[in-house]
């Protein structure tokens, strides 16, 4: 087994310490940060996402795998920046105003980070102005908004309207998710995409990236 495979397996087998040690070994041997990212980290988290989707993994396994991913990422991130390796895209994410629910949002953040995207996490209880401000400052490719209740998801259209009013709607794609949301609701409020869970969120963003690259 190569060291790259060993690192990938450490992530899949939810072993943060082993992931960190293996990353050190890889860097000592002169393996590039981009290779570690693309050959071990992203495929490893993809497999974790697949296992979660198929019901073999649960949130604890995803969180510990994400910890393993972060152990690697913290070591290679400065090298990626130094080497000018571009991230796949930037995503601003937050839980909608009135809602303190963060677990789903955190899972989506981790999976997208594991898929190679830069994540700007605005936290919970985020209002329309804060989303607009983050878009202006961070210039993300996507804005992802989460809600837990039917009584809080009704604030999402206000955010979309505020983005439109600020003249930013054509610059960013709006993704929505959370227990009460559906594809039909996403379409009704004018969102660009909906994902029912964290692994689907990764697939959705990748599909949208491909579609955008193709146009």
């Amino acid at each position, binding site marked *: 087994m190569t060291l790259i495979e060993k690192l990938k397996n450490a992530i899949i087998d939810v072993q943060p310490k082993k992931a960190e040690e293996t990353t050190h070994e890889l860097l000592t041997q002169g393996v590039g940060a981009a290779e570690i990212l693309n050959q071990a980290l992203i495929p490893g988290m993809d497999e974790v996402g697949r296992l979660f989707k198929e019901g073999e*993994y649960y949130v604890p396994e995803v969180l510990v795998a994400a910890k393993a991913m972060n152990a690697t990422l913290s070591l290679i991130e400065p090298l990626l920046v130094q080497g000018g390796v571009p991230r796949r895209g930037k995503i601003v994410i937050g839980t909608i105003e009135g809602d303190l629910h963060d*677990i789903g949002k955190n899972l989506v953040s981790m999976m997208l980070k594991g898929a190679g995207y830069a994540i700007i996490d605005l936290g919970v*209880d985020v209002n329309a102005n804060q989303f607009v401000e983050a878009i202006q400052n961070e210039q993300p490719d996507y804005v992802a908004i989460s809600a837990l209740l039917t009584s*809080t998801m009704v604030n999402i259209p206000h955010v979309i309207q505020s983005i439109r009013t600020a003249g930013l709607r054509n610059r960013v794609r709006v993704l929505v998710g959370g227990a009460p949301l559906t594809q039909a609701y996403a379409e009704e409020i004018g969102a660009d995409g909906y994902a*029912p869970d964290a692994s689907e969120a990764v697939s959705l963003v990748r599909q949208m990236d491909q579609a955008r690259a193709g146009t």
Partner: protein
Amino acid sequence: MFRSQNREPDFENLKQVLQKKAPPRAVLFEFLLGENKEKRLTGTEFRSSSEFDRVVTTIKAFDSGGYDFAPIIVRGLVFERKSHFVSHALTKSLNEGSVITDRQSFENYAWPEIENCDFSIISKAASYLHPKAKFIPFSHDGILENVIGIVGYERLCLMLYEDEPLVSAIFFEVGKRIHSYFKACLSYPEVGAVILNDDWGFNTHTLISPKALRKYVFPWYKEIVVMTHDNGKYAILHSCGRYDAIIEDIIGDMRFDARHSYEDGITPVETAYEALKGRLAVLGGMDVGFMARSGAEEIYERSTRMLRRSAGLGGYALGSGNSIPDYIPDENYLAMLQAAFDWENREGGRDDPN
């Protein structure tokens, strides 16, 4: 009084449902009613100035609504946790708690004692209960909910991998207290069943793996259900979230009599009933979002269809998928009750009303 005088509360009706049999009339089940709903059902009899007043109001609201029981909680067993209060927020995070972070904070934690609970409220309040109705006690959150409350969800997830002995110790301390709570409740003759309320999942998964649930959570409930049955009473599970990976544990291992909490986004109650009928009583199931957003007529019709579906085999009581929060319009909630009242007027409730 919203129910008719002819529809007298009688726990025997719910008992038939819990035995997976067809009751002689439509049976209603609800776990919790919002305060405004209790006001609507009790009218001038509504009182809330003391804990005892609130218990009596709930008894009267459930009587007025046509239920054969009243839920009751005995205060005092509260596992203290940190709370990040945000005045305009409508939800809270499962990560909020986090008072036990390691072995030292576990040792220092002020565990609530069962002696803080005054169980005599059950017999004192019984004088307000209809003579044929029974109490169904529930606790201030269940075993997993309380552990998540004091540890924090994401911290618990990591702790499961990083400090398994500490996880075991925390579940033991919470589990033995919840067990003692229900043991005390079951000693009262006014109690007909218990609601073991513990959310184990969300819309796509259980919160922790079935393997972890089997190790830390289910053994406690198995013991509580055995104790309940030994007392000649019934055990109702109220647990939100996806349950298909653990349904055989619920039926075959823990041997619950009934399950409550169904969501259209996970398993609509109609599908759940077809899968579970004859093995586990199905309670409620009118999705809360559906009840909040639909018209009263639509709710009446779906309720009637569900009563029709279950009329032959039984093992079903009509109610919401979770509870009746105040954001469900009154007329929508009352339409569901009316469907039950109208059903029993139709030739023993067995014929197709259409």
